């Protein structure tokens, strides 16, 4: 009648409830905290009323411990109720839900490792940091990450259940996902590269900007020439070269942006000093 899971959690629930009452009685003292325990508090009518009414009337002793024990009892009772309702997921119980009630449904084979749970954690972290620090860029990045994860994770989940063949599932996922992943990622990468190059131009002045533009153009041309005249180079090698160049551009752009802001601050100070003088 009662499953082992129910007995475990039911016992834990009873333990929490009894523990809460014992703790509530024994921790009664000055300020209701555990500073001056009164082990004969159970004869006190106020104590009994307090415990029965869960603190609505009367005193429950150390409120913190009492509440935690009561909630532990509630939680264990809830989980115990759930596992007994599902008969501890025993074979007959689960088999009854399937198409063939006499046989236990096969378990799904492990699918490929997924990055989406970890990306979700990063997205939530960035979002919270952005909200707490009131940094608009951070919480926008967090929202974008979470939105992307919502779409990608749903797609992966759908594909994993499409057929019983993991290879075909993966191909199906790519077939649907590539239709929007490649354009979106291409646009995003292009935008980041354009932004990085623009930061470099802002940082450089006069002939230096021309020199930077020349070097960047030569690098891009060199990679393109390599791709055309050395077709025997593998796709992975070429991807790696393009990736390194892109990362180098972005890194230089970040460095240039940091230095430009520094200069900008100095200019700002100068302007404020000038305006103060003018004001005088």
């Amino acid at each position: 009648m009662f499953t082992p899971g129910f007995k475990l959690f039911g016992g834990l629930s009873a333990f929490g409830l009894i523990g809460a009452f014992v703790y509530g009685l024994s921790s009664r003292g000055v300020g209701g905290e555990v500073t001056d325990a009164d082990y004969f508090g159970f004869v006190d009518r106020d104590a009994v009323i307090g415990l029965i009414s869960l603190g609505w009337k009367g005193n429950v002793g150390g409120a913190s411990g009492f509440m935690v024990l009561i909630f532990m009892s509630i939680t264990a009772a809830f989980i115990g109720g759930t596992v007994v309702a599902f008969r501890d997921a025993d074979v007959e119980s689960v088999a009854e839900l399937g198409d063939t009630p006499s046989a236990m449904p096969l378990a799904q084979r492990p699918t490929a490792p997924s990055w989406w749970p970890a990306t979700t954690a990063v997205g939530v972290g960035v979002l919270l940091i952005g909200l707490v620090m009131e940094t608009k860029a951070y919480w926008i990045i967090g929202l974008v990450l979470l939105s992307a994860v919502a779409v990608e994770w749903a797609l992966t989940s759908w594909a994993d259940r499409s057929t019983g063949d993991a290879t075909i599932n993966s191909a199906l996922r790519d077939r649907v996902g590539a239709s929007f992943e490649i354009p979106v990622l291409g646009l995003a990468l292009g935008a980041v590269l354009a932004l990085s190059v623009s930061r470099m131009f802002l940082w450089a002045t006069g002939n230096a900007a021309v020199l930077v533009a020349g070097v960047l153009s030569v690098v891009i041309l060199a990679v393109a020439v390599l791709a055309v005249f050395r077709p025997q180079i593998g796709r992975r090698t070429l991807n790696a070269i393009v990736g390194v160049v892109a990362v180098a551009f972005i890194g230089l752009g970040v460095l240039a942006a940091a230095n430009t802001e520094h200069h900008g601050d100095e200019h700002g100070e100068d302007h404020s000093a000038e305006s103060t003088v003018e004001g005088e």
Partner: protein
Amino acid sequence: MSGTTFSSTDLAHAVVSEAPAPFVPRKRTLQIGTALVTGMWVMYFGGLFGTYVSSRNAWRDVQDGLAAEGGSAISWIPDSAQVELTAPTVMTWTLLMSCVTMQWAVYSFKRSDRRHGLLALGTQAMFGAAVINQVVFQWNQLGLVIDDTSGSSAATLIYTITASHVAMIIMAMVLLAFAAFRALASSDTKDHVDVVASAATFWYAMVGLYFVIWILIFITK
């Protein structure tokens, strides 16, 4: 595909018709998982409530001692804050009503009634959004300053508890969206009763916790 070699993940040649049938997921896994997550939330709030009541009792004892010695006592929730019962009570009733619509969604899913199931989920989402709107309104109305100089930690704890509850509502709404997505994508909503039942479990726990917040913070203050 005869006589031609394709990459194992060749997009153009993934022959779905020849693939083995997918595994049927075992039922109840999601419900057990949701029960455990719900238990985690309940325990988290238990800790918060314990801290709140303990801090409030300790503060009041100190202030009572000060008043007995002839000093002026400072209230737990600063006098400058405007704690009104209207918004929390409206929220409590809204959440109670939402329990009916939540059960309506489960009922419709069980009977393969997609239209009413989606309608119920939509109504449910509206209730959730309405409660979040009320919470934000109440935060503005309260006017609690989080770095209050009186030394009372009421503002910090009230914001922590209410914001945690908003996070729980958002999570419940994500579950509802997940159930709605499954209903839209599936030929029969009956196959996804476990999803909507899991969402309902989590929702009811969230409503129960708000009831405690209502009593603990706004009724007993």
